[in-house]
């Protein structure tokens, strides 16, 4: 056992043999690289438009890498493997759902969203509904979603820094927040595009290389990677249809409303390139999720003890040390720690940029100075929440955020793009119903000391349909409030460019 910690919450006794030095090196390198690339982007970002959407000149491959980098959060890098370790085949729904969300995004949102010409989701609400009220409600929701989503990232950072170095968890959360605030304030979105694209490939390398070595090692020592099939036993759900349908609904529809993902679509030059970008993202995510899935399966054989402790989400971080010793173990562990920090940094900065974009446009006058102030505020609030609260299982708590966006922003976007009948009152009523139901479920689920009831853990199935229904009914009752020039607005969303 390694010296240096008697930290209470996530103690090293849960099977960590990682060298603290390797952890420190990994953290320093990732943070330094992120800062350097972020500040280098400063050269390119001079005007306000640069700050918000990189002047819409980002190429599909760059954009797709950036979306992948931004999207693959703590839940993907650590949570998926942890959940597979704990619950087996049922957990496979998470990576599939996280990816399938992009299929839905491609089908229903990508091109129209780009063609709307809006910077942010509130911009879209205003352009489509011609209503400052709808805009304000949407702004508050975007800020809420962003903050809700940053908190699990910081919990992930706390877990990772404790496992990797033995330091208390809050240092990890503060570190991630600090790096993100500096890069965001320095360069805005353009630099973030570079940073995010870099982060995707770093994350892929960091999770793939150790796995290749682990598989080679198992091959040469003649151990079966799945424990002769033992890894696949158990956790088959026994026909629990409610959980599956509710989770699928949350993950598939929730992606449509994620503000940090949608903001990326404004940086595509036109509708077709927005579609191409989304197609590439699907490929990049599919490639990535093979690896946490394999880590989870390996974990079920070689790190089974983690399933019952508080460190299930650290499976990816601890697995290399279970297979290798000495230098090889340290090097591979350092690599996965670096990847995990890349995940926290990239998702957090994407969220901070989108929350700051909304905050500064709606409350700070839209200037560059306002954006910087907003960036500071949008990172500080979730940091305080993260330090004050305890972490849940990462994949699960991110799943709740997806349920929330699926019940609020998603209906507004889907109906706004595809249904002529949506009115501002309808949108506000629907988002209100979704917020009360799903927000209530999230709040209620925090009251339980043990695991919350399934209905609260997976609320989407009973919160999304009422939100849609309320939006449609209230729109029908206020049909006279359909904006003037509706035909022109819808034509702009759907008619191809360069006509």
């Amino acid at each position, binding site marked *: 056992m390694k010296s240096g910690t008697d930290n209470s919450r996530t103690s090293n006794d849960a099977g960590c043999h990682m060298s603290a030095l390797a952890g420190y090196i990994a953290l320093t390198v990732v943070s330094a690289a992120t800062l350097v690339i972020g500040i280098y982007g400063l050269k390119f970002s001079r005007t306000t438009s640069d700050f918000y959407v990189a002047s819409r000149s980002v190429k599909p491959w760059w954009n797709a890498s950036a979306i992948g980098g931004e999207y693959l959060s703590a839940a993907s890098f650590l949570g998926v493997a942890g959940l597979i370790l704990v619950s087996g085949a049922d957990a496979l729904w998470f990576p599939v759902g996280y*990816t399938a969300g992009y299929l839905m995004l491609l089908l229903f949102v990508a091109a129209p969203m780009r063609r709307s010409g809006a910077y942010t989701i509130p911009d879209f609400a205003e352009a489509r509904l011609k209503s400052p009220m709808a805009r304000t409600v949407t702004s508050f929701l975007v800020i809420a979603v962003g903050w809700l989503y940053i908190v699990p990232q910081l919990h992930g950072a706390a877990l990772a820094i404790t496992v990797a170095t033995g330091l208390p968890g809050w240092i990890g959360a503060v570190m991630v927040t600090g790096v993100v605030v500096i890069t965001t304030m320095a360069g805005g979105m353009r630099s973030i595009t570079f940073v995010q694209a870099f982060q995707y490939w770093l994350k892929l390398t960091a999770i793939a290389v150790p796995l290749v070595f682990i598989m080679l090692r198992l091959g040469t020592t003649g151990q079966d990677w*799945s424990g002769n099939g033992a890894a696949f036993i158990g956790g088959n759900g026994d026909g629990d249809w409610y959980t599956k349908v509710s989770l699928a609904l949350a993950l598939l529809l929730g992606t449509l409303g994620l503000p940090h993902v949608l903001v990326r679509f404004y940086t595509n030059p036109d509708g*077709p390139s927005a579609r191409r970008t989304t197609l590439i993202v699907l*490929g990049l995510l599919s490639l990535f999720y093979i690896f946490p899935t394999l880590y989870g399966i390996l974990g079920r054989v070689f790190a089974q003890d983690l399933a019952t402790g508080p460190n299930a989400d650290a499976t990816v971080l601890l697995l290399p040390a279970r297979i290798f010793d000495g230098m090889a173990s340290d090097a591979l562990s350092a690599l996965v720690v670096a990847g995990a920090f890349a995940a926290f940094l990239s998702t957090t900065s994407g969220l901070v940029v989108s929350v700051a974009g909304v905050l500064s446009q709606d409350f700070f006058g839209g200037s560059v100075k306002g954006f910087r102030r907003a960036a500071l505020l949008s990172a500080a609030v979730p940091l305080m929440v993260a330090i004050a609260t305890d972490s849940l299982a990462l994949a699960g708590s991110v799943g709740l955020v997806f349920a929330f966006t699926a019940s609020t922003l998603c209906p507004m976007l889907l109906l706004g793009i595809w249904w002529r009948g949506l009115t501002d009152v309808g949108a506000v009523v629907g988002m209100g119903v979704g917020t009360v139901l799903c927000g209530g479920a999230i709040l209620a689920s925090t009251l339980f000391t043990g695991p919350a009831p399934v209905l609260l853990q997976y609320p989407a199935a009973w919160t999304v349909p009422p939100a849609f229904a309320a939006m449609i009914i209230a729109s029908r009752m206020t049909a006279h409030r359909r904006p003037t020039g509706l035909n022109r607005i819808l034509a702009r969303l*759907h*008619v191809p460019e360069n006509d």
Partner: protein
Amino acid sequence: MTGNPRRIRVQSPGYDAQEPAPASQPDDASNASDAYVRSLIRSQLRLAVVVGSGFLILLLGVPALVWLSPALAQLSILGVPLQWLLLGFLMYPIMITAAWLYTRSAQRNEERYRQLTDQQ
């Protein structure tokens, strides 16, 4: 589709997907006939719903398989049970294929719209 009295003109598309489009949006889009726009929206929505529900049926087919025939779901291929193989690995190429097919068809719908409006 919409009744169209004129012949279809054979022409180069006049639109190069490789070329970046100008930053400005087509403001004269509102001049384009409403009927054409509505029909474009309908066909794009129909396409999206067909692809989306097709994928959903495949996705929910996996638990359906486990529910209907647990033995088949546990059938081991290369040491991996079918259920794990389907959900953990094979769903991804299916999604990419669906996305690729959709992108092509959506582009074709837009091409058709462009041809119809070019004739006015």
